[in-house]
């Protein structure tokens, strides 16, 4: 039994937005795997919850006429991984969210909740950052689109207002066509884990299969929020991918990251992971994209 004041099961998105607007104390709950834990801890005890659990209009993956992939924010990790569109066009995103917690968590947890929780360790975040995803935030009064790269503002904080619901995540074809991708989650265990570090790489080889046409590198837990490493990315554009270049990218990424020491891991250890995982993730993404060394 959770100590909550009230749960309002919204009938549809509009109903949910109105409920959020009506009750200034209320907060959104989707899959529940984060919010209910906070209620149990006492941090959110007595909360008034507006449930958007499995609302059909917020659930599912579709491809639009322009080739954009649109993921409903309430889509579970398990459903994303198994979705044929994801499997065909951005399988590495499906793989990334397939590393959240364990199978039961992935069945219940949603990609929107993962982002809105604001944690730097969110397994969906680095790859979505690398994909330049756009997020649609809607309230009863307004609707706006925010690039995921501008979504996180600090540990557990995002630009989303209390009365806004993240409705969908959009990925444009220019950001995935021709790319190979790889997300590496590093934790103390292989499952049921919070990332000690997460590294997402997206690489697009030029037609010669040796030169880098585009490279994106993003991390979780390398800073208080998920980050893109544009300085490292720039080094690669137009260059032939070699071990030396990989080393330079990795070092640059480490130089621009700001991991902190905590009881979970030291800054020094995280820096080691930032460099090593960059090499491995880019290498794998490159191979997947058909690049050769």
């Amino acid at each position, binding site marked *: 039994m959770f*100590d909550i004041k009230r749960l309002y099961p919204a009938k549809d998105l509009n109903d949910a937005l109105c409920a959020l607007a009506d009750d200034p104390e209320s907060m959104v709950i989707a899959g529940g795997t984060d919010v209910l834990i906070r209620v149990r801890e006492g941090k959110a*005890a007595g909360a008034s919850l507006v449930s958007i659990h499995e609302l059909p209009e917020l659930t599912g993956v579709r491809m639009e006429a322009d080739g954009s992939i649109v993921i409903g924010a309430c889509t579970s990790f398990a459903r994303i991984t198994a979705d044929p569109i994801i499997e065909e066009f951005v399988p590495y995103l499906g793989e990334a969210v397939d590393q959240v917690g364990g199978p039961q968590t992935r069945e219940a947890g949603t990609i929107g909740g993962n982002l809105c929780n604001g944690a730097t360790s969110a397994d969906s975040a680095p790859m979505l950052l690398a994909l330049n995803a756009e997020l649609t935030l809607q309230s009863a009064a307004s609707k706006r689109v925010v690039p995921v790269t501008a979504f996180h503002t600090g540990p557990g904080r995002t630009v989303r207002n209390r009365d806004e619901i993240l409705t969908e995540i959009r990925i444009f074809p220019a950001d995935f066509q021709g790319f190979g991708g790889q997300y590496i989650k590093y934790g*103390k*265990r292989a499952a*049921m884990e*919070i990332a000690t570090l997460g590294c997402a790489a997206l690489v697009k080889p030029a037609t010669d299969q040796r030169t880098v046409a585009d490279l994106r590198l993003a991390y979780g837990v390398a800073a208080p929020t998920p980050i893109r490493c544009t300085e490292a990315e720039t080094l690669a554009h137009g260059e032939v991918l070699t071990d030396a270049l990989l*080393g330079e990218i990795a070092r640059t990424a480490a130089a621009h990251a700001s991991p902190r020491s905590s*009881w979970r891991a030291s800054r020094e*250890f995280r820096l*080691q992971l930032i460099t090593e995982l960059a090499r491995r993730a880019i290498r794998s993404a490159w191979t997947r994209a058909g690049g050769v060394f």
Partner: protein
Amino acid sequence: MAVGQSIPRVDAFAKVTGEAKYTADLVPANAYVAKIVRAPVASGWVRGFDLTEAQAVPGVVRIFTCFDVPDIQFPTAGHPWSTVPSHQDICDRKLLNAHIRVWGDEIAVVVARDRISAERAARLVKADIEVLPALSTPDEAMAPGAPCLHEEKPGNVVVHSQFHLGDGTFDEAAATPGAVVVSGHYSVPAVQHCHMEPVHSFAYMEGQKITVVSSTQIPHIVRRVCGQALGIPWSRVRVIKPYMGGGFGNKQDVLVEPLAAWLTTQLGGHAVNIELSREEVLGCTRTRHAFDWDVQAVASPDGTLLARTYCAKSNQGGYASHGHAIAANAANVFKQCYRDRVSLDSESYTVYTNRPTAGAMRGYGIPQGCFITEALTDDLAYALGMDPLEFRLKNCVQAGYVDPHNGITMHAYGLDQVLEKGRAAIDWDAKRRLYQNQTGDRRRGVGMALFTYKSNVYPISLETASCRMMLHEDGRVTVQMGATEIGQGADTVFTQMAAESIGLPVDAIDIQSVQDTDVSPFDTGAYASRQTYVSGMACKMTGESLRGKILDYAAGMLERSAEGLTITDGQIVDETGQTVLTVADVGMESCYSLTNSRHLTAEETYHCEQNTFATGACFAEIEVDLALGQIHVLRLVNVHDSGRLINPKLAEAQVHGGMSMGLGYALSEEMLFDDACKPLNANLLDYKIPTAMDTPKLEALFVEVDDPTGPYGNKALGEPPAIPVAPAIRNALLHATGVSVHSLPLTPQKLIEHFRAAGLLGGEDHV
């Protein structure tokens, strides 16, 4: 033969169908919920409370504080009671305590009609606390001027013990020409049991009788401690142990039972339920003791072990619990495993600190002792340039060993076969050669560790076990044990031994899995890997007694002598092999005879004055990913000599579970604290027990050497599988990389630091 067969577990059906009732499944619907108010600091004094807001929460029944409880200090260790005062456990806590010694110490308790009310009120209890500095380590606690945790133990040392063996000294041995000496500081952290069923008890009264239903390994001891804590005659307390979701030693301690028992007495006998959250279980019950050691070893150039010194500091945490028994065990295994030709100097301290109370945990000091013994052994062999297995064969304990202090004797010896079997299984000799002189980012190694383990607590403590059996009209037999099934399979092997000793098929035996101290015969419970060996003997003796009574009664029915009659598979057979009656015939007649009705029952106590050593070893093959600091276990093989196996398939399963626990101890498990001794990772996400994805294939092998002192030739198996895994993996790391790590767990961050210091991570080219 019922013994030696891999029959299915007798409780498996109830467990796969959900019929098995655990403590949580039996709580009366109207039970009050008790929520313990825990100290938000690890050291200090409660000076007072403001309960105004808490008492105003609707649903609250009563709030009790540390100033309300009886002024009685009691012990909690699941040890047999001693009627000799000097051997009694330390009585160092009350039901609730004003002197705070651990983070989360129990300072008050809210009783409410429902859980949410109890939790809300508990959050609103305001305690006025004088905070003292928290002591993390034995060294801090032993330093002059450190706050005293218990006035009975000024200086915070619970016990200091030492011994010397041999005619010479370490320095003399070290002066041997060409002698190789190694020394170092080593340590292991506190870890937690992580039984899947939380700690849970509830209590209620019927008349003057207080019934405590609890997930405990030790119902009879719980009854005694509840009696002691409440200051009432022990038999006023009745303890019922239902099905149990694991204990691993945490529930070989008396935890929340006395509080539940006392609360019901304060509330008119109303049922009071205390179910600890997972966070409370991890952070506020018991742990495995953390140890620090300073050790030395010296060998002659040919690899003969000459002498060792051993100084251990065992971190007891805030309350004595099992106390120095763990440090004594660790020192003993260091002594028992190897032959120091010149001398062994051993010294152990058990010291109070403000870390969580350490108690019993699977292996009871031997996993720690095995780590230091086997890490030091490999470091010495490495310094000698000698194959560590050859070093062990040259120096390890031999057949007929008698412990010079307690007289425990190795009545049967299978360690030589264990080592050879493991050597062959892991392909030791070829792998040791193959993995020499590796370069590159991924390196492989093989390592091993051995251990000895006694089969009960005699002669350090009492060993006693009892069993009762009754024959029913249809020839079936009900078995009641005082020993407890906690998940390990005890009831199944007792069933097999009962069937074997009476002469019945196993499916004619009904064992009662629930212990009830008002009904069940006396036994001290599940610990020390004692039950198959000690309680099993009680079962065997009782079965033989019942068999005699059945045959005597049958002889009367047949108007002949019982001599020459036997029972086989439920049939009573005469000298010629002819079935003359069935046990069912005897059951019916003995109940309903108009001339000689007599309920055929038997009850025996095994007062055990025997002990013996089980042995075993773990062999590990690993691959190290240098740049990520990760160890991948490629193969893990445990080989055990636990005498004759009563149920080979259950034995194998028991070994798997122990190996898994050892794997966690090796690679990922440790309780983490801040400087103020507050636990940082007291949940199952941050405390890292292995998942299925972290576990390699687990290979369990056995050497079966009959032990003449055990029932049907068996000896300890319950705890041993967890013992040798961590040092074996640690030693494989030494082989793979040449890096000697002196502490557990072998976490990636720690390994990266070691690899960097050893120059294994290279420079620019590597990044």
